[in-house]
């Protein structure tokens, strides 16, 4: 979930990074225009990837691993990005009366690539294994809404009390509290099913994972070289993969990959180096796709520090930033200014949600003065991830527009950066980001802004906001829930514990050999629908 980088080298770091984005969806060609009816399947293409931190569903919290895993696995559900709603993949349908106890009906024709059937028991076994602290899976805390999570984590129980197998095709899930986005959440990487074989030796298993997805591994994961997969012909879904074979070429440096696409050695590159934005149209002509994503960058305030407690200080600082100017000058236009915290890629987004996100230097200066904003600021960001330029630009604007006299910078290695946050030792505005692991307005807000949650680095706490989120999570009706989420968002944008800055626009380039290249809001290329044209 965080975006720790925009750049190239950072991609390598995916590990530390964290951009999780992993929700799924993949398993179906959601939405978007499906390939032409006449789309001919077949062929092989290569696509850029960074070296995954690992290839274990329960342990993959970054985009390099998750984008591969979502082709190898099919979850209970996937998401249609047009409507923002979940639909069944392994599940046929589900029902709940109170958003607490859910019954999922499963298809009986899904199999793992080794022939093992996928049943309700498979999901229960996988989930219990992922949550078991002995297995140290990074995605374990995505299960914290399921009844019995705490007991398993504390070693008081072996299995999740809230996951019950009724029969082979019926799975019952009971939660701690009402949570209506459950079907959307279950589309996330961390909830994919694993075959029994995986539990014998997970480290060996991940070198050539066996899944139940559209594609299966073709040989082993060649670290830092490539991951090859071929279509799994027994995948029972409606929209199997189009190409016969997909090769993920692993690159260290996105600049190298860019040259390779130019030379025709690589077919798809999902993100270009920022400095190429100015020349990409010359280099690729029609073979480029621009997509809005949920990748959100913000400046948070350490609300535990005295000088940032007046909301007007925060409002003024937000209004003193000319987002578009920074986007044009530093990102060559490849961002869109943020005017909300629910991102534009979700149907619940409202363009005019934020009253303090437009550039108004005069009003900002006056407000800052009256509220007695600090004369000296220290800005925090993690180093080596391409943040230097824009953080400096913001500092300049604050100096110019608010009369801040002195601004200093703390750029730290990521691990060190997080340590400072954990110890509440940050003394000024800090950079962080967020990518939706699953596309729900709940996920855009609850994990960052509710009281006491682990990614709430501002230490923001507003009871009314918390209650609205809880209420929205519990409501049956989607429209009603959306309205409540938006109401919560309004409170957030009034309190402004963070300054919304921008959403990333992805530029994806490809060769003449492929068509129908699309990127979804999680920043994943929909590889399963890419067509090889020659």
């Amino acid at each position, binding site marked *: 979930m965080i975006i720790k980088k925009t750049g190239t080298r950072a991609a*390598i*770091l995916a590990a530390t990074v964290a951009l999780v984005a992993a929700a799924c969806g993949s398993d179906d060609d959601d939405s978007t225009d499906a390939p032409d009816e006449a789309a001919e399947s077949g062929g092989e293409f290569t696509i850029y990837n960074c070296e995954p931190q690992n290839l274990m569903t329960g342990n993959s919290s970054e985009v390099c691993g998750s984008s591969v895993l979502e082709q190898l696995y099919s979850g209970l559900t996937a998401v249609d990005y047009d409507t923002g709603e979940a639909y069944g993949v392994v599940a046929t349908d589900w029902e709940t009366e109170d958003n607490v106890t859910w019954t999922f009906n499963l298809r009986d024709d899904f199999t793992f690539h080794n022939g093992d059937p996928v049943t309700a028991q498979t999901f229960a076994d996988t989930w219990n294994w992922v949550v078991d602290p*002995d297995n140290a899976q*990074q995605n374990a805390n995505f299960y914290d809404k399921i009844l019995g999570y705490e007991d398993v984590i504390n070693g008081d129980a072996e299995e999740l009390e809230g996951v019950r197998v009724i029969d082979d095709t019926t799975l019952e899930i009971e939660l701690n509290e009402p949570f209506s986005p459950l079907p959307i959440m279950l589309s996330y990487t961390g909830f994919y099913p694993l075959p029994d074989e995986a539990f014998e030796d997970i480290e060996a298993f991940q070198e050539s994972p066996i899944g139940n997805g559209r594609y299966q591994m073709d040989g082993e994961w060649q670290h830092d070289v490539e991951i090859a997969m071929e279509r799994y012909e027994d995948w029972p879904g409606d929209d199997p993969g189009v190409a016969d074979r997909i090769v993920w*070429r*692993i690159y260290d440096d996105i600049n190298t990959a860019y040259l390779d696409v130019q030379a025709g050695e690589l077919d798809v590159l999902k993100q270009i180096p920022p400095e190429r934005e100015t020349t990409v149209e010359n280099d690729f002509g029609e073979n480029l796709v621009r997509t809005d994503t949920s990748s959100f960058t913000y400046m948070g305030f350490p609300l535990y520090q005295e000088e940032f407690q007046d909301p007007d200080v925060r409002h003024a600082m937000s209004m003193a930033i000319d987002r578009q100017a920074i986007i044009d000058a530093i990102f060559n236009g490849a961002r869109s200014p943020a005017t909300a915290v629910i991102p534009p890629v979700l149907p619940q987004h409202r363009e005019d949600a934020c009253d303090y996100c437009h550039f108004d230097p005069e009003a900002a200066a006056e407000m800052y003065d009256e509220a007695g904003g600090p004369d000296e600021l220290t800005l925090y960001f993690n180093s080596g991830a391409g943040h230097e330029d824009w953080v400096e630009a913001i500092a300049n604007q604050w100096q110019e527009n608010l009369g801040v006299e002195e601004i200093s910078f703390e750029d730290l290695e990521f*691990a060190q950066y*997080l340590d400072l946050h954990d110890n509440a030792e940050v003394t000024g505005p800090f950079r962080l980001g967020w990518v939706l692991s699953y596309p729900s307005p709940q996920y855009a807000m609850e*994990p960052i802004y509710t009281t006491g949650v682990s990614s709430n680095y501002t230490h923001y706490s507003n009871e009314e906001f918390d209650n609205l989120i809880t209420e929205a999570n519990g409501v049956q009706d989607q429209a009603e829930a959306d309205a409540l989420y938006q109401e919560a968002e309004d409170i957030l944008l009034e309190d402004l514990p963070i300054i919304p800055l921008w959403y990333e626009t992805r530029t994806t380039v490809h060769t003449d050999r492929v068509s129908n290249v699309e990127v979804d809001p999680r920043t994943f290329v929909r590889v399963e629908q890419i067509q090889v044209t020659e």
Partner: protein
Amino acid sequence: MKRYVIRRLLQFLPVVIGATFIIFALVFAIPGDPIRALSGDRPLSDAVQETLRERYNLNDPLLIQYGKYMLGLLQGDFGTTFSGRPVNDIIVQRVPVSIRLAVSALVIQGVIGGLAGILAALRRQGFVDSLVQVSTTVLVAIPTLVLGMIGQVVFGLHLGWFPIAGIDQGWYSYILPGAMLASTSMALVARLLRTSLLENLRADYVRMATAKGLSRTRVVGRHALRNSLIPVVTFLGADLGTMLSGTVIIEGIFNLPGLGREVFRGIQQQEGTVVVGIVTLFVLVFVTLSLVIDLLYAYLDPRIRYD
């Protein structure tokens, strides 16, 4: 000679122990908690973090951690990465890549640099000499990083002579990265050999050989050149260190899955086992090669004795 070799081999031990400990301590001293950073700003649950710290001995004090690591190392176990992959596997996969890159670079700097140096010395002040002087100055002045990127765009993308990245085409894939890695040293070898050869060509023993009526080829090849190689060999030995650090850059640019890249990643992620494992290997290679080079002196100049 034999005693000399044994004595040198015994010196390996403290060097390796000292080097591994220093590196281990340096990684240990990097601020920030590597486990905390694993999943970015969405923290892992405490239970998961605790299991991981326990598994990688991160709760132990430095000396205990180092002791456990060395104990494993003695049994041939280099430990595992944070995602559970044995470092042994990583080394086995990457060593051939790095060796090929190093060999390509060595051959290129030895052959091309050597030839350029000889030709320049033999035709002093001539066209070739001026060309070598100018081109080597330019090469020495450009950092490997810049040269690598330029070479990649010119020879890989625009001319299409060599692959831009990867190791798909076997040895052929290593020519361009090898040349870029070798460039600085190649220029230095050329200059060094030129100077050294010029000096020797004026020496008494060469005049003597010429006076005896030996052919020019024989005078230069058997006498002057052999003696002139001593400083070059010394340089090549010392240069290995520079080359190892160059692999980090070149492997990154040309996307070669070698050891340099892995060390870089290991440092960034504070994976002590990976960094120490690979650097230990580097140290071993380095000390072995310096021994080989010391032994070469005797061959080049029979007057050199080892006891």
